[in-house]
């Protein structure tokens, strides 16, 4: 008996796969492409059919079907309507049946207010002219790193010694996503796109495959609590080193790469046994205070002879402004704040959905706090976690960010449909899998081209909006909250964001 459901483990399937039998030509492409054992072909019956309970709505089958025979539908609850309980019935049952807390991936999917969508941008009319970016130069180049409080010039030259800077042609970088979480081909595509666009991709906490050392000059290397794959050549190849303290999707939680994804090459890169779970502890066991963090920052600076900026990445949590101030004072050159809409390759669902802050608030309060303390120039700020489009990036920069990181957006560009199954290692789009048969689904030539297209289009869109505001350099947009207005926000929300209401 192959497919018969059992009441003991039953919760209703979340999706139904509907196949138009007239259109279906039995080519079986969908059968092969479904990596979640949800689609089958029965020779005797000449039928293609589905085991809906396994379907995760990745939409790979629908995308590949040459006759558009497939529609995936969300199954509606057949339970009696109950506003307070209905979305909890099955998740409660699953805990009761399987005795474990559900692990999920991608970012928080709960309907919290998205503040980006309540912020409007300004444009110039009459009194100051708008600028056409296709006719006039428009500067997006950004330098990330500690800026001097004042500069000294003598003998026709700059006397002040500048701190190392990260130079980016567009204020968008690819966020930390480890090799291990991502497949080899995706890392390859990110590296190529970063190189082409004059920006950086972040290795994440899983070390760097030896093939990808070729992207030197476009890599930020990460040092996280597990210290996977960290050694001298690794630090040397990075243009900056990022210390990962926290991640927006799972503040206070360490990393977890399931053993299924720790293949031979991953184990070699991470310097750990094949097939065992890669667990990074929740804290760095040598960082229990700002002073400890300072030691780690300077250990890394010392190891790389003060040639590279050090980034400290923290999750947006309630007292983020005070922590950011401490991080700046600890000697970080760049501070990355990761909001709670940021993605993850694996996180306990309860943490992902309930912990942290929206990046909009975190960014606004951190920028404000550092300004008030007179140390804003000591660190550049990179906003991350839920940057969905170029306008989110513009608004983030106007709220005070120097640049943004994109992770989920980059994966979407190369096929991801946000089915939230990254932790299973079975990604049907070949993105978050180490199965060599699945990871072939990402062709680095196609994927890098798509990433390049995305960044080019975003850059143009940013220039268009800057031009409309009469601004010709991203420098003048930075922290320019006067160009932002709130709509459908409370006075208190706008006060925290530091923006005026629309109409004022």
């Amino acid at each position, binding site marked *: 008996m192959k497919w018969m459901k059992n009441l003991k483990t039953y919760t209703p399937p979340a999706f139904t796969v509907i196949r138009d039998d007239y259109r279906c030509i039995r080519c079986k492409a969908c059968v092969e492409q479904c990596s979640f054992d949800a689609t089958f072909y029965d020779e005797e019956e000449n039928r293609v059919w589905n085991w809906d309970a396994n379907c995760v709505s990745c939409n790979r089958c629908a995308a590949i079907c040459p006759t558009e025979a497939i529609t995936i539908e969300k199954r509606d609850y057949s339970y009696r309507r109950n506003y307070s309980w209905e979305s909890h019935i099955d998740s409660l049952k699953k805990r009761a049946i399987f005795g474990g807390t559900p692990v999920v991936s991608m970012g928080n999917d709960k309907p919290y207010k998205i503040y980006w969508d309540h912020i409007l941008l300004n444009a110039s009319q009459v009194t100051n002219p708008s600028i056409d970016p296709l006719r006039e130069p428009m500067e997006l180049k950004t330098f990330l790193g500690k800026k001097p409080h004042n500069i000294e010039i003598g003998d026709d030259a700059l006397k002040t010694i500048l701190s190392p800077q990260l130079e980016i042609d567009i204020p968008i970088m690819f966020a930390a996503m480890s090799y291990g979480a991502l497949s080899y081909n995706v890392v390859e595509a990110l590296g190529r796109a970063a190189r082409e666009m004059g920006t950086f991709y972040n290795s994440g906490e899983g070390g760097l495959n030896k093939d990808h050392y070729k992207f030197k000059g476009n890599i930020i290397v990460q040092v996280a609590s597990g210290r996977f794959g960290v050694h001298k050549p690794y630090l040397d190849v990075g243009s900056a080193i990022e210390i990962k303290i926290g991640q927006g999707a799972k503040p206070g939680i360490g990393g977890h790469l399931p053993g299924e994804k720790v293949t031979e090459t991953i184990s070699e890169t991470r310097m750990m046994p094949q097939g065992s779970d890669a667990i990074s502890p929740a804290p760095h066991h040598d960082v229990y205070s700002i002073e400890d963090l300072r030691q780690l920052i300077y250990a890394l600076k010392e190891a790389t002879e003060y040639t590279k900026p050090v980034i400290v990445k923290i999750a947006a949590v309630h007292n983020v402004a005070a922590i950011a101030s401490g991080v700046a004072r600890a000697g970080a050159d760049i501070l990355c704040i990761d909001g709670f809409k940021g993605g993850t390759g694996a996180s306990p669902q309860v943490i992902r959905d309930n912990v942290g802050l929206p990046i909009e608030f975190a960014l606004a309060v951190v920028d404000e706090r550092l300004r008030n303390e007179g140390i804003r120039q000591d660190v550049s700020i990179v906003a991350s976690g839920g940057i969905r489009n170029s306008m989110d990036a513009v608004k983030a920069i106007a709220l005070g960010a120097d640049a943004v990181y994109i992770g989920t957006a980059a994966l979407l560009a190369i096929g991801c449909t946000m089915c939230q199954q990254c932790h299973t290692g079975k990604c049907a789009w070949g993105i978050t899998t180490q199965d060599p048969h699945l990871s072939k689904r990402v*062709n680095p030539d196609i994927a890098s081209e798509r990433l390049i297209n995305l960044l080019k289009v975003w850059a143009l869109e940013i220039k268009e909006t800057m031009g409309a505001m009469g601004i010709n350099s991203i420098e003048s947009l930075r922290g320019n909250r006067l160009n932002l207005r709130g709509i459908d926000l409370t006075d208190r929300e706008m006060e925290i964001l530091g923006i005026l209401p629309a109409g004022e």
Partner: protein
Amino acid sequence: MKIVKINEDNCIYCHLCEVACVVEHSQSKDIIKAFKREEKPTARCGVEFNYPLSLSVMCRHCDDAPCMEACQNGAMHRDDRGYVVVNEDKCVGCWMCVMACPYGVIKRDTRRDVWGLSTKCDSCPDRDVPACVEACPNNALMFEEI
């Protein structure tokens, strides 16, 4: 001359090349009719699989084509574009070419009127880019100069 180049690193085993080949060589050139109404032509490319490898193989249009050598009737010949094709009127279905092809890409037709005759990739004479190449979603097949 351009031929279909195969990049096995990119093949995702979707068989869409075969689907496109069938449609291209059908009467109607309509995907539903080709598969459900007509006598289905044989796909001239074939996808091979040995986990994790897969690749689609079709005629390499060899310079020293052994199939042409083996054909007793002159049915297997080189057309004026330079591709190796079979003339169904001359083919007697002896399958010597099938035996001779080192790539195993010559198939036997299953349609009633031409049953048992050899059938193979004709590099899509009615198209600029072969159907399989156009259908391949991952650039595992590319139509390039040799």
